[in-house]
């Protein structure tokens, strides 16, 4: 039997939780140290995944399959391809940094916090590795609970409960409909082939009648669109981001939102390819609205965290636009942009978290001239900002450039509108940066702020390394996903030619 590396990645954090349960709840240093240790070991465990990944094939690798509920066709079936590889690596890479970032931030209920964080990690890896629809759904729901607790228990006292419940119910709303669609798909597959299974890869090849695809695409799509979040389902995001503790926001932005986009890539599009082509205009336009609207709303925010939250709506709009071009460039760009957004937005939330720790405010108006007081901080903040607005040489540029390339190839108009998003993002980010960092120190409280400590610099160092690595030599990462993307495009290309009208769908004539 091959080494079950993915299972270890999924269950090792749970083992870590077991360890934490036995530690003294008063001794914060030990608790944080233990959590950091677990997260680091997890990261080391994930390295072989990266190095022995075969990037020439689109097939699933490191596959493990065990019967779970055999009479129902449910199995514990996990594996990775290029898409999930990058996201799993992102997860294991960010979690130790997150633990490090809680060092001074979280001072109450540390034990429970670390337990939630590790549980979340396990759930996220599970979501990206699951290849069985039932298993996927279980992970997808399970990881709501730790995130809900992170926001609700350690969030900003004023509105945390509201934000936590809103986050939970919004996500739940989409996912219960997805559950119905999964069941419909399961029984449809069983009736047409005689085999009842939740095995995702077996379902890929199924030729589903169009009017079924139509509804199921919408049901799955709603669940993922809420998670992404696409306009108009994004309203939970600013609340959740703003109220969550720093680390909660980082994980939420960097990994949780990617579950939505990943869901589109892994489930929605390959399972219902005809419907995916049919819905290109709708989803592209929603993505474009997200890009422009998110950017415009960002510009008006007074709270930095809220600003970054809305910028996420804009950035994720780019990802969705890229994925819906169904071109190599667009999809590759979309994937790399998922990683980019994880790195740069994660870093931005950390930046905000660090000045919040010092000043207990996130209002842009309370700052100004930080460059004088905190030069290292200002430098790091600038690099991260530039990466977020996609300056050439940083990671953001690669992602947005590829996406725009794909968008222009598939539809000039989409490309043009999306390109304005790039300009707008420069506006709101730089304007915010200018108001916070440049200029005179207007508020005396800012005068003797301490600059970043070594620990804080250590958190940013790996992030900045990858910001430049992807910016300068994206090949390392693009190569890993190339085969998977090509396979994906080929699969989508086959399903292209369907022409169906709305009325045929409603009459049930569209086969």
């Amino acid at each position, binding site marked *: 039997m091959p080494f079950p590396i993915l299972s270890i990645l999924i269950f090792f954090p749970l083992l870590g939780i077991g360890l934490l349960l036995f530690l003294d709840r008063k001794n914060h240093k030990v608790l944080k140290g233990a959590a950091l240790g677990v997260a680091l070991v997890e990261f080391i465990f994930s390295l072989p995944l990266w190095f022995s990944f075969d990037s020439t094939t689109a097939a699933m690798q490191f596959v493990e399959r065990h019967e779970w*509920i055999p009479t*129902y066709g449910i199995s514990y079936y996990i594996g990775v391809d290029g898409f999930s590889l990058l996201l799993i690596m992102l997860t294991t890479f960010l979690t130790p940094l997150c633990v490090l970032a809680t060092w001074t931030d979280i001072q109450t209920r540390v034990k429970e916090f670390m337990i939630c964080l590790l549980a979340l990690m396990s759930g996220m890896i599970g979501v990206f590795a699951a290849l069985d629809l*039932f298993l996927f759904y279980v992970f997808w729901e399970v990881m709501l609970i730790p995130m809900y607790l992170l926001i*609700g228990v350690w969030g900003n006292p004023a509105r945390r409960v509201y934000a936590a*419940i809103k986050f939970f*119910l919004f996500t739940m709303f989409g996912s219960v409909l997805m*559950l119905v669609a999964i*069941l*419909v798909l399961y029984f449809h597959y069983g009736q047409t082939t005689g085999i009842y299974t939740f095995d995702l890869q077996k379902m890929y090849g199924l030729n589903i009648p169009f009017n079924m695809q139509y509804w199921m695409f919408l049901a799955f799509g709603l669940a993922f669109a809420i998670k992404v979040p696409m306009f108009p389902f994004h309203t939970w995001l600013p609340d959740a981001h703003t109220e969550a503790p720093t680390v909660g926001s980082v994980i939420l932005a960097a990994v949780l939102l990617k579950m939505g986009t990943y869901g589109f890539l892994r489930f929605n599009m390959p399972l219902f390819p005809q419907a995916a082509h049919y819905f290109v205009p709708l989803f592209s336009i929603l993505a474009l609205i997200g890009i422009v609207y998110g950017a415009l709303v960002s510009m008006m925010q007074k709270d930095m965290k809220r600003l970054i939250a809305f910028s996420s709506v804009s950035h994720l709009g780019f990802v969705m636009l890229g994925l819906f071009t169904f071109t190599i460039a667009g999809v590759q760009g979309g994937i790399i942009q998922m990683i980019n957004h994880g790195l740069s937005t994660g870093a931005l939330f950390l930046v905000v978290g660090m000045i919040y720790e010092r000043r207990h405010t996130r209002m842009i108006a309370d700052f100004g001239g930080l460059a004088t007081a905190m030069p290292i901080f200002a430098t790091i903040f600038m690099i991260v900002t530039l990466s977020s607005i996609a300056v050439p040489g940083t990671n953001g540029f690669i992602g947005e450039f590829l996406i725009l390339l794909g968008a222009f190839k598939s539809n000039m108009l989409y490309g043009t509108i999306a390109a304005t998003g790039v300009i707008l993002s420069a506006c709101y980010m730089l304007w915010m940066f200018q108001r916070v960092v440049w200029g005179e120190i207007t508020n005396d409280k800012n005068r003797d702020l301490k600059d970043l400590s070594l620990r804080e610099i250590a958190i940013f160092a790996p992030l900045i390394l990858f910001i430049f690595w992807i910016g300068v030599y994206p090949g390392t990462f693009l190569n890993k996903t190339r085969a998977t993307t090509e396979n994906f495009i080929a699969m989508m290309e086959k399903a292209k030619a369907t022409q169906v009208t709305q009325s045929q769908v409603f009459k049930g004539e569209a086969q």
Partner: protein
Amino acid sequence: MTINIPIFHLNSIGPALILTVTAVVILLLDALSPKGRRKAFFPQLSLLGLAAAALQTYLMWGSKGTDFARMIYVDNYTFFFYFIFILGTALTVMISRQYLEDYGKNMGEYYALLLFATVGMMLMAASAHLIMLFLGLEVMSIAVYVLAGLFREDPRSNEASLKYLILGSFSSGFLLFGMAMLYGAAGGTLYLDELPKALAGHSTFAQPLTLLAIALLIVGFGFKVASAPFHMWTPDVYEGAPTSVTAFMAVGVKAAAFAAFARVFFLAFPAFRVDYTMLLWVLAVATMTIGNVCAIAQTNIKRMLAYSSIAHAGYLLVALVAANQLGAVSLLYYLLAYTLMNLGAFGVVILVGRKKDSYLNIYDYAGLGFQHPALGAAMALFMFALAGMPPTAGFVGKFYIFSAAVQGGFIWLTILGVMNSLISMYYYLRITVLIYMKPAEADLGPVAFSPGVTAVLAATAAGVMLSGIFPGALYDLAMNAVKIFPGL
């Protein structure tokens, strides 16, 4: 003149007999033993009787047939429900003792009545004839009427008992009336296995009569399972009755009523499936929605759980509507899961309620998670399980129920069902919000962890998790049990 006594085997009703004997022994001991030394061992004795009944059931597992002049079924479906009842009663016995002692009500009658009610439930699940079913129902109901009024000095308990008695008798009347109609329509038989044929062959007059009978039966059963619009009694009775009795009613009575409900409808009315599913569809949606929406407004935890139990009756009705094999399996699985998670939740309610139920408001749970981490975590687990979050038994149960509905082609019902579980999420989440996210309004003070309740909490929490993560074995067991319905 000779009287033919039909051959029967006492073994076939062994579990029920054991429990009856145990209950009678408890009553006698209670009456005969000298004052002051009487109450100590009744719970243990009841548990012993229940264990013996469980063993007996286990030994009979796999046998098939009828007995007592075809009045009762001896089959796995029956046995599966025996296990559910025995489990529910055993857990109830274990959470009762400390609670009743606080009230000075730890009496022999209580345990005897619990056991008698369990016997009634067993007869309901086993009945092969509608009269038998009615007898079982009455044995169960009368015991529960008394139990609900156990706290004689408490006006709410009196109200609960009286309300339950009056409305319950009324609904029994409906049930009996339905059976009478059916007797006429079928030309003189009430055996479940003879009914389909008897109902098919008769005059044109028979069909409307049967439909009327079905409607009346649904009223009768609907009352017992607390389905809308026959649910009005539930919140008051659940709130007023002693908490341990409420727990017992929510799991035991409901399971028994569903056992009979499913058996009668699946066996006797295959030709009328279209008619009754139509009616049950509406009832299911109404029950889920009313239960969930009303639960949101509750501040008393027992009342909230009462409405949640109404909502769960709605989900279970979905399984009946589906009327396929998977539906029957999901019914059994869900009732078992519900027994575990609901009794666990009531166990926490008893612990937090303490001295004579003085902390029953949901705001009394504020800060519980950090003052008593284990208790808070257990309550949160039960809430998530009731809401149907993986990886708990509640999720798997809902998953089975909704897949049965999808398989039966009831997509809209499924969508309404999942939307309801979304609504239910809100009020279950609110409890977890209070437990973890609100500071305690006052110091909760020490909670008296009595060994019985602690054991129940540990066992139910473990059961909820394990049967959620490894549901395969139970699924196969339930599948084995529902093979008796040939038409599904």
